[in-house]
Protein backbone atom coordinates (compact mmCIF):
# COMPACT_ATOMS: atom_id res chain seq x y z
CA UNK A 1 0.00 0.00 0.00
CA UNK A 2 1.68 3.23 -1.03
CA UNK A 3 -0.92 5.89 -1.61
CA UNK A 4 -2.05 8.57 -1.01
CA UNK A 5 1.43 9.31 -2.32
CA UNK A 6 1.90 12.43 -0.23
CA UNK A 7 1.14 10.60 3.01
CA UNK A 8 3.67 7.94 2.10
CA UNK A 9 6.46 10.46 1.62
CA UNK A 10 6.77 9.88 -2.12
CA UNK A 11 6.94 13.63 -2.58
CA UNK A 12 7.19 16.68 -0.33
CA UNK A 13 5.31 19.93 0.09
CA UNK A 14 7.00 21.77 -2.78
CA UNK A 15 6.33 19.09 -5.37
CA UNK A 16 2.77 18.74 -4.10
CA UNK A 17 2.14 22.33 -5.23
CA UNK A 18 3.29 21.44 -8.74
CA UNK A 19 0.99 18.44 -8.75
CA UNK A 20 -1.87 20.61 -7.49
CA UNK A 21 -1.19 23.02 -10.34
CA UNK A 22 -1.30 20.24 -12.93
CA UNK A 23 -4.48 18.77 -11.43
CA UNK A 24 -5.99 22.25 -11.46
CA UNK A 25 -5.26 22.61 -15.17
CA UNK A 26 -6.85 19.24 -15.90
CA UNK A 27 -9.88 20.04 -13.75
CA UNK A 28 -10.41 23.44 -15.36
CA UNK A 29 -10.08 21.89 -18.80
CA UNK A 30 -12.66 19.22 -17.95
CA UNK A 31 -15.12 21.77 -16.54
CA UNK A 32 -14.81 24.01 -19.56
CA UNK A 33 -15.22 21.11 -21.98
CA UNK A 34 -18.28 20.02 -20.00
CA UNK A 35 -19.81 23.44 -20.62
CA UNK A 36 -19.62 24.59 -17.03
CA UNK A 37 -18.00 27.87 -17.88
CA UNK A 38 -21.42 29.01 -19.07
CA UNK A 39 -23.83 30.33 -16.42
CA UNK A 40 -26.90 29.43 -18.51
CA UNK A 41 -26.04 25.73 -18.49
CA UNK A 42 -25.43 25.78 -14.74
CA UNK A 43 -28.57 27.70 -13.84
CA UNK A 44 -30.68 25.58 -16.24
CA UNK A 45 -30.10 22.70 -13.83
CA UNK A 46 -32.45 24.33 -11.36
CA UNK A 47 -35.16 24.82 -14.00
CA UNK A 48 -34.78 21.16 -15.06
CA UNK A 49 -34.27 22.13 -18.69
CA UNK A 50 -30.66 21.00 -18.77
CA UNK A 51 -29.56 18.35 -16.28
CA UNK A 52 -25.97 18.38 -17.46
CA UNK A 53 -24.49 19.45 -14.14
CA UNK A 54 -26.33 16.71 -12.26
CA UNK A 55 -25.27 14.03 -14.76
CA UNK A 56 -21.62 15.13 -14.91
CA UNK A 57 -21.32 15.45 -11.13
CA UNK A 58 -22.82 12.06 -10.43
CA UNK A 59 -20.71 10.46 -13.14
CA UNK A 60 -17.63 11.93 -11.46
CA UNK A 61 -18.80 10.81 -8.00
CA UNK A 62 -19.44 7.24 -9.12
CA UNK A 63 -16.19 7.02 -11.10
CA UNK A 64 -14.08 8.32 -8.21
CA UNK A 65 -15.94 6.22 -5.66
CA UNK A 66 -15.60 2.97 -7.60
CA UNK A 67 -11.98 3.77 -8.40
CA UNK A 68 -11.05 4.47 -4.78
CA UNK A 69 -12.97 1.46 -3.48
CA UNK A 70 -11.35 -1.02 -5.84
CA UNK A 71 -7.88 0.50 -5.49
CA UNK A 72 -8.29 0.16 -1.72
CA UNK A 73 -9.49 -3.42 -2.12
CA UNK A 74 -6.41 -4.13 -4.26
CA UNK A 75 -4.25 -2.78 -1.44
CA UNK A 76 -2.98 0.24 -3.39
CA UNK A 77 -4.76 3.00 -1.47
CA UNK A 78 -5.14 3.43 2.28
CA UNK A 79 -8.61 4.95 2.59
CA UNK A 80 -7.94 5.97 6.19
CA UNK A 81 -5.26 8.38 5.00
CA UNK A 82 -7.45 10.13 2.42
CA UNK A 83 -8.18 13.54 3.90
CA UNK A 84 -11.63 14.99 4.43
CA UNK A 85 -12.87 17.58 6.87
CA UNK A 86 -14.92 17.14 10.01
CA UNK A 87 -18.71 17.33 9.87
CA UNK A 88 -20.64 20.17 11.52
CA UNK A 89 -24.10 19.26 10.35
CA UNK A 90 -26.20 22.42 10.84
CA UNK A 91 -23.63 25.03 9.76
CA UNK A 92 -22.80 22.95 6.71
CA UNK A 93 -26.47 22.62 5.74
CA UNK A 94 -26.87 26.39 6.10
CA UNK A 95 -23.69 26.95 4.08
CA UNK A 96 -24.98 24.61 1.39
CA UNK A 97 -28.27 26.51 1.20
CA UNK A 98 -26.43 29.83 0.84
CA UNK A 99 -24.22 28.35 -1.87
CA UNK A 100 -27.27 26.94 -3.65
CA UNK A 101 -28.97 30.34 -3.60
CA UNK A 102 -25.81 31.95 -4.95
CA UNK A 103 -25.58 29.33 -7.68
CA UNK A 104 -29.11 29.97 -8.92
CA UNK A 105 -28.83 33.74 -8.66
CA UNK A 106 -25.36 34.08 -10.10
CA UNK A 107 -25.25 30.98 -12.26
CA UNK A 108 -21.90 29.80 -10.92
CA UNK A 109 -20.30 27.96 -8.07
CA UNK A 110 -16.77 28.97 -7.00
CA UNK A 111 -14.89 26.58 -9.29
CA UNK A 112 -16.98 27.25 -12.37
CA UNK A 113 -16.73 31.02 -11.84
CA UNK A 114 -12.95 30.69 -12.13
CA UNK A 115 -13.38 28.64 -15.31
CA UNK A 116 -15.73 31.27 -16.69
CA UNK A 117 -13.34 34.10 -15.78
CA UNK A 118 -10.46 32.27 -17.43
CA UNK A 119 -12.46 32.15 -20.69
CA UNK A 120 -13.05 35.90 -20.54
CA UNK A 121 -16.67 36.03 -19.46
CA UNK A 122 -17.45 39.25 -17.59
CA UNK A 123 -20.21 37.68 -15.50
CA UNK A 124 -17.76 35.06 -14.25
CA UNK A 125 -15.26 37.74 -13.28
CA UNK A 126 -17.92 39.68 -11.38
CA UNK A 127 -19.04 36.50 -9.62
CA UNK A 128 -15.40 35.85 -8.65
CA UNK A 129 -15.10 39.38 -7.29
CA UNK A 130 -18.23 38.67 -5.26
CA UNK A 131 -16.57 35.52 -3.88
CA UNK A 132 -13.55 37.48 -2.70
CA UNK A 133 -15.80 40.06 -1.09
CA UNK A 134 -17.81 37.29 0.56
CA UNK A 135 -14.65 35.66 1.92
CA UNK A 136 -13.48 39.00 3.28
CA UNK A 137 -16.86 39.68 4.89
CA UNK A 138 -16.89 36.17 6.38
CA UNK A 139 -13.43 36.64 7.84
CA UNK A 140 -14.27 39.98 9.38
CA UNK A 141 -17.53 38.73 10.87
CA UNK A 142 -16.18 35.36 12.00
CA UNK A 143 -15.94 36.27 15.70
CA UNK A 144 -19.68 36.89 15.67
CA UNK A 145 -20.57 33.56 14.07
CA UNK A 146 -17.81 31.31 15.40
CA UNK A 147 -20.09 29.65 17.95
CA UNK A 148 -22.55 28.72 15.24
CA UNK A 149 -19.71 27.74 12.88
CA UNK A 150 -18.47 25.11 15.33
CA UNK A 151 -21.91 23.97 16.50
CA UNK A 152 -23.32 20.44 16.10
CA UNK A 153 -19.97 18.72 15.52
CA UNK A 154 -20.11 15.12 14.41
CA UNK A 155 -16.37 14.60 14.05
CA UNK A 156 -14.65 12.70 11.31
CA UNK A 157 -17.64 10.73 10.06
CA UNK A 158 -18.34 8.71 6.94
CA UNK A 159 -21.60 7.22 5.67
CA UNK A 160 -20.53 3.62 6.45
CA UNK A 161 -19.74 4.58 10.05
CA UNK A 162 -22.89 6.67 10.38
CA UNK A 163 -25.23 3.93 9.19
CA UNK A 164 -23.21 1.02 10.50
CA UNK A 165 -22.86 -0.68 7.12
CA UNK A 166 -19.88 -1.73 5.05
CA UNK A 167 -18.23 0.51 2.47
CA UNK A 168 -19.40 -1.86 -0.25
CA UNK A 169 -23.06 -1.40 0.67
CA UNK A 170 -22.71 2.39 0.50
CA UNK A 171 -20.97 2.07 -2.89
CA UNK A 172 -23.82 -0.09 -4.18
CA UNK A 173 -26.51 2.30 -2.90
CA UNK A 174 -24.77 5.36 -4.36
CA UNK A 175 -24.38 3.62 -7.72
CA UNK A 176 -28.08 2.75 -7.78
CA UNK A 177 -29.02 6.32 -6.82
CA UNK A 178 -26.69 7.71 -9.48
CA UNK A 179 -27.97 5.42 -12.25
CA UNK A 180 -31.57 6.07 -11.20
CA UNK A 181 -30.88 9.78 -11.06
CA UNK A 182 -29.26 9.68 -14.48
CA UNK A 183 -32.27 7.93 -16.04
CA UNK A 184 -34.61 10.28 -14.17
CA UNK A 185 -32.65 13.32 -15.35
CA UNK A 186 -32.89 12.25 -18.98
CA UNK A 187 -36.63 11.66 -18.59
CA UNK A 188 -37.07 15.13 -17.06
CA UNK A 189 -35.05 16.74 -19.84
CA UNK A 190 -37.21 15.01 -22.46
CA UNK A 191 -40.42 16.06 -20.75
CA UNK A 192 -39.26 19.66 -20.40
CA UNK A 193 -38.18 19.68 -24.02
CA UNK A 194 -41.59 18.31 -25.10
CA UNK A 195 -43.35 20.86 -22.96
CA UNK A 196 -41.20 23.61 -24.32
CA UNK A 197 -41.94 22.43 -27.85
CA UNK A 198 -45.69 22.32 -27.11
CA UNK A 199 -45.57 25.84 -25.63
CA UNK A 200 -43.77 27.14 -28.72
CA UNK A 201 -46.42 25.59 -30.98
CA UNK A 202 -49.14 27.33 -28.96
CA UNK A 203 -47.36 30.65 -29.26
CA UNK A 204 -46.92 30.26 -33.02
CA UNK A 205 -50.52 29.23 -33.54
Amino acid at each position, binding site marked *: *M*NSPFYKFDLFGDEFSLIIAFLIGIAFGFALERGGFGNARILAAQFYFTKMQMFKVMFTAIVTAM*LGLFYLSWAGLVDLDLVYFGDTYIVPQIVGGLILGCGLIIGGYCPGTSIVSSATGRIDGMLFLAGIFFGIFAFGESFPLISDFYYSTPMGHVTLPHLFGV*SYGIVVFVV*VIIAVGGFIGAEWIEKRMAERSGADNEEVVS
Partner: protein
Amino acid sequence: MKRLFPSMNGQQKLMALAIALGVIAAFIGTPDNHHSVKLDMSELAREITDGHSTIQVKDLADWIIKGKYDYGLIDLRTEKAYLEYSIPTSENISPSHVIDTEWMENEKLILYAEDGTTAAQTWALLKATGHKNVYVLSGGMKEWKDNILFPVLADHSSTVQKTEFEKSKEVAKYFGGHAQTGSTTQMMPELQVLKSPVKRKPPMQTKTRKKKKREGC
Protein backbone atom coordinates in the same frame (compact mmCIF):
# COMPACT_ATOMS: atom_id res chain seq x y z
CA MET B 1 -28.83 -11.29 -22.37
CA LYS B 2 -26.44 -11.95 -25.27
CA ARG B 3 -28.55 -9.78 -27.55
CA LEU B 4 -29.17 -7.15 -24.90
CA PHE B 5 -25.57 -6.00 -24.33
CA PRO B 6 -24.63 -5.30 -27.99
CA SER B 7 -27.88 -3.40 -28.46
CA MET B 8 -27.00 -0.97 -25.66
CA ASN B 9 -25.47 2.34 -26.44
CA GLY B 10 -22.23 3.47 -24.80
CA GLN B 11 -23.96 5.27 -21.96
CA GLN B 12 -26.10 2.25 -21.12
CA LYS B 13 -23.07 -0.06 -21.18
CA LEU B 14 -21.28 2.21 -18.71
CA MET B 15 -24.35 2.21 -16.44
CA ALA B 16 -24.50 -1.59 -16.59
CA LEU B 17 -20.78 -1.76 -15.74
CA ALA B 18 -21.23 0.62 -12.79
CA ILE B 19 -24.14 -1.47 -11.46
CA ALA B 20 -22.10 -4.66 -11.82
CA LEU B 21 -19.18 -3.10 -9.94
CA GLY B 22 -21.56 -1.80 -7.29
CA VAL B 23 -23.04 -5.27 -6.75
CA ILE B 24 -19.56 -6.79 -6.45
CA ALA B 25 -18.61 -4.03 -3.99
CA ALA B 26 -21.62 -4.90 -1.83
CA PHE B 27 -20.29 -8.47 -1.53
CA ILE B 28 -16.72 -7.32 -0.86
CA GLY B 29 -17.85 -5.23 2.09
CA THR B 30 -15.15 -3.02 3.57
CA PRO B 31 -11.66 -3.27 2.05
CA ASP B 32 -9.09 -4.36 4.60
CA ASN B 33 -6.74 -1.44 5.18
CA HIS B 34 -4.31 -3.56 7.21
CA HIS B 35 -4.25 -0.92 9.95
CA SER B 36 -7.36 -1.49 11.96
CA VAL B 37 -6.98 -3.84 14.84
CA LYS B 38 -9.32 -5.45 17.31
CA LEU B 39 -8.62 -4.81 20.96
CA ASP B 40 -9.72 -7.10 23.73
CA MET B 41 -10.19 -4.34 26.27
CA SER B 42 -10.97 -6.64 29.19
CA GLU B 43 -7.81 -8.65 28.60
CA LEU B 44 -5.72 -5.50 28.39
CA ALA B 45 -7.30 -4.12 31.54
CA ARG B 46 -6.64 -7.40 33.35
CA GLU B 47 -2.98 -7.39 32.36
CA ILE B 48 -2.57 -3.84 33.57
CA THR B 49 -4.33 -4.52 36.87
CA ASP B 50 -2.52 -7.79 37.58
CA GLY B 51 0.86 -6.22 36.91
CA HIS B 52 1.73 -9.01 34.49
CA SER B 53 2.67 -6.47 31.86
CA THR B 54 5.66 -5.05 33.76
CA ILE B 55 9.16 -6.23 34.58
CA GLN B 56 10.88 -4.87 37.67
CA VAL B 57 14.33 -3.31 37.26
CA LYS B 58 15.78 -5.64 39.88
CA ASP B 59 14.61 -8.69 37.92
CA LEU B 60 16.13 -7.33 34.73
CA ALA B 61 19.41 -6.56 36.48
CA ASP B 62 19.40 -10.12 37.82
CA TRP B 63 18.87 -11.58 34.33
CA ILE B 64 21.67 -9.50 32.86
CA ILE B 65 24.09 -10.52 35.60
CA LYS B 66 23.18 -14.19 35.13
CA GLY B 67 23.57 -13.92 31.37
CA LYS B 68 19.96 -14.74 30.63
CA TYR B 69 19.14 -13.48 27.12
CA ASP B 70 15.75 -14.90 26.23
CA TYR B 71 14.30 -11.45 25.65
CA GLY B 72 14.78 -8.39 23.49
CA LEU B 73 15.39 -5.22 25.50
CA ILE B 74 14.31 -2.16 23.53
CA ASP B 75 15.34 1.39 24.35
CA LEU B 76 12.66 3.72 22.97
CA ARG B 77 14.54 6.95 23.70
CA THR B 78 16.37 9.15 21.21
CA GLU B 79 19.67 8.02 19.74
CA LYS B 80 21.48 10.76 21.65
CA ALA B 81 20.09 9.59 24.99
CA TYR B 82 20.89 6.00 24.06
CA LEU B 83 24.49 6.79 23.21
CA GLU B 84 24.96 8.72 26.46
CA TYR B 85 23.90 5.71 28.47
CA SER B 86 21.73 2.67 27.97
CA ILE B 87 20.91 -0.46 29.90
CA PRO B 88 23.25 -3.25 28.83
CA THR B 89 21.87 -5.66 26.19
CA SER B 90 19.39 -3.04 24.97
CA GLU B 91 18.80 -1.96 21.38
CA ASN B 92 17.70 1.52 20.39
CA ILE B 93 14.54 1.43 18.28
CA SER B 94 12.07 4.30 17.99
CA PRO B 95 8.40 3.60 18.85
CA SER B 96 7.26 3.89 15.23
CA HIS B 97 9.88 1.39 14.07
CA VAL B 98 8.94 -0.97 16.87
CA ILE B 99 5.35 -0.99 15.60
CA ASP B 100 6.40 -1.43 11.97
CA THR B 101 8.89 -4.23 12.66
CA GLU B 102 7.70 -7.78 12.09
CA TRP B 103 8.73 -9.48 15.31
CA MET B 104 9.00 -13.21 15.63
CA GLU B 105 5.92 -14.75 17.10
CA ASN B 106 6.04 -14.88 20.90
CA GLU B 107 9.42 -13.13 20.99
CA LYS B 108 9.74 -11.65 24.47
CA LEU B 109 10.14 -7.90 24.30
CA ILE B 110 10.87 -5.54 27.19
CA LEU B 111 10.33 -1.86 26.48
CA TYR B 112 11.75 1.08 28.34
CA ALA B 113 11.99 4.84 27.89
CA GLU B 114 12.93 7.68 30.20
CA ASP B 115 9.88 7.07 32.36
CA GLY B 116 6.89 4.83 31.79
CA THR B 117 4.71 6.83 29.39
CA THR B 118 6.30 6.17 26.01
CA ALA B 119 6.93 2.55 26.87
CA ALA B 120 3.33 2.09 28.01
CA GLN B 121 1.99 3.61 24.81
CA THR B 122 4.22 1.43 22.66
CA TRP B 123 3.23 -1.59 24.73
CA ALA B 124 -0.44 -0.88 24.04
CA LEU B 125 0.19 -0.55 20.30
CA LEU B 126 2.18 -3.81 20.17
CA LYS B 127 -0.57 -5.56 22.11
CA ALA B 128 -3.12 -4.19 19.66
CA THR B 129 -1.19 -5.64 16.73
CA GLY B 130 -1.35 -9.06 18.36
CA HIS B 131 2.05 -9.37 20.00
CA LYS B 132 1.47 -11.29 23.21
CA ASN B 133 4.86 -11.39 24.90
CA VAL B 134 5.61 -7.72 25.45
CA TYR B 135 6.39 -6.01 28.74
CA VAL B 136 7.26 -2.60 30.12
CA LEU B 137 10.27 -2.05 32.36
CA SER B 138 8.61 -0.59 35.41
CA GLY B 139 9.70 3.02 35.92
CA GLY B 140 11.95 3.06 32.88
CA MET B 141 15.45 4.55 32.89
CA LYS B 142 14.61 6.70 35.89
CA GLU B 143 13.83 3.68 38.01
CA TRP B 144 16.99 1.92 36.71
CA LYS B 145 19.14 4.85 37.79
CA ASP B 146 17.41 5.24 41.16
CA ASN B 147 17.39 1.59 42.16
CA ILE B 148 20.17 -0.15 40.25
CA LEU B 149 22.88 2.39 39.44
CA PHE B 150 22.51 4.72 42.41
CA PRO B 151 20.57 2.95 45.16
CA VAL B 152 20.13 5.00 48.30
CA LEU B 153 20.10 3.77 51.87
CA ALA B 154 18.02 5.99 54.11
CA ASP B 155 19.53 7.14 57.38
CA HIS B 156 17.28 5.15 59.72
CA SER B 157 17.06 1.81 57.93
CA SER B 158 16.31 -1.57 59.39
CA THR B 159 18.77 -4.47 59.42
CA VAL B 160 16.90 -6.12 56.57
CA GLN B 161 17.08 -2.96 54.53
CA LYS B 162 20.79 -2.67 55.23
CA THR B 163 21.35 -6.27 54.10
CA GLU B 164 19.41 -5.60 50.90
CA PHE B 165 21.42 -2.45 50.41
CA GLU B 166 24.68 -4.41 50.53
CA LYS B 167 23.41 -6.56 47.67
CA SER B 168 22.32 -3.42 45.82
CA LYS B 169 25.82 -1.99 46.24
CA GLU B 170 27.31 -4.98 44.44
CA VAL B 171 24.75 -4.76 41.66
CA ALA B 172 25.37 -1.03 41.27
CA LYS B 173 29.11 -1.65 41.10
CA TYR B 174 28.57 -4.34 38.45
CA PHE B 175 26.70 -1.90 36.23
CA GLY B 176 29.14 0.93 36.80
CA GLY B 177 27.13 2.95 39.29
CA HIS B 178 27.63 3.46 42.98
CA ALA B 179 25.44 3.24 45.99
CA GLN B 180 24.70 6.24 48.18
CA THR B 181 23.70 6.62 51.75
CA GLY B 182 21.12 9.11 52.93
CA SER B 183 23.76 11.35 54.43
CA THR B 184 25.89 11.45 51.30
CA THR B 185 23.06 11.81 48.79
CA GLN B 186 23.20 15.13 47.10
CA MET B 187 21.98 15.79 43.59
CA MET B 188 21.89 12.87 41.18
CA PRO B 189 25.50 12.53 40.03
CA GLU B 190 26.28 13.16 36.38
CA LEU B 191 26.03 9.89 34.60
CA GLN B 192 29.15 9.37 32.52
CA VAL B 193 29.30 7.03 29.58
CA LEU B 194 29.70 3.73 31.34
CA LYS B 195 31.29 0.70 29.86
CA SER B 196 28.88 -2.15 29.60
CA PRO B 197 30.08 -5.00 31.86
CA VAL B 198 28.61 -7.57 29.47
CA LYS B 199 28.82 -8.01 25.73
CA ARG B 200 25.75 -6.90 23.82
CA LYS B 201 24.09 -9.77 22.06
CA PRO B 202 23.87 -9.56 18.25
CA PRO B 203 21.08 -7.38 16.81
CA MET B 204 17.75 -9.13 16.56
CA GLN B 205 16.88 -10.45 13.11
CA THR B 206 13.81 -8.52 12.14
CA LYS B 207 12.12 -7.40 9.00
CA THR B 208 11.09 -3.78 8.77
CA ARG B 209 7.88 -2.92 7.02
CA LYS B 210 7.91 0.01 4.63
CA LYS B 211 7.49 3.11 6.75
CA LYS B 212 4.70 5.50 6.01
CA LYS B 213 4.09 9.07 7.02
CA ARG B 214 0.88 9.96 8.73
CA GLU B 215 0.09 13.60 8.32
CA GLY B 216 -2.93 15.74 7.97
CA CYS B 217 -3.37 17.84 4.91
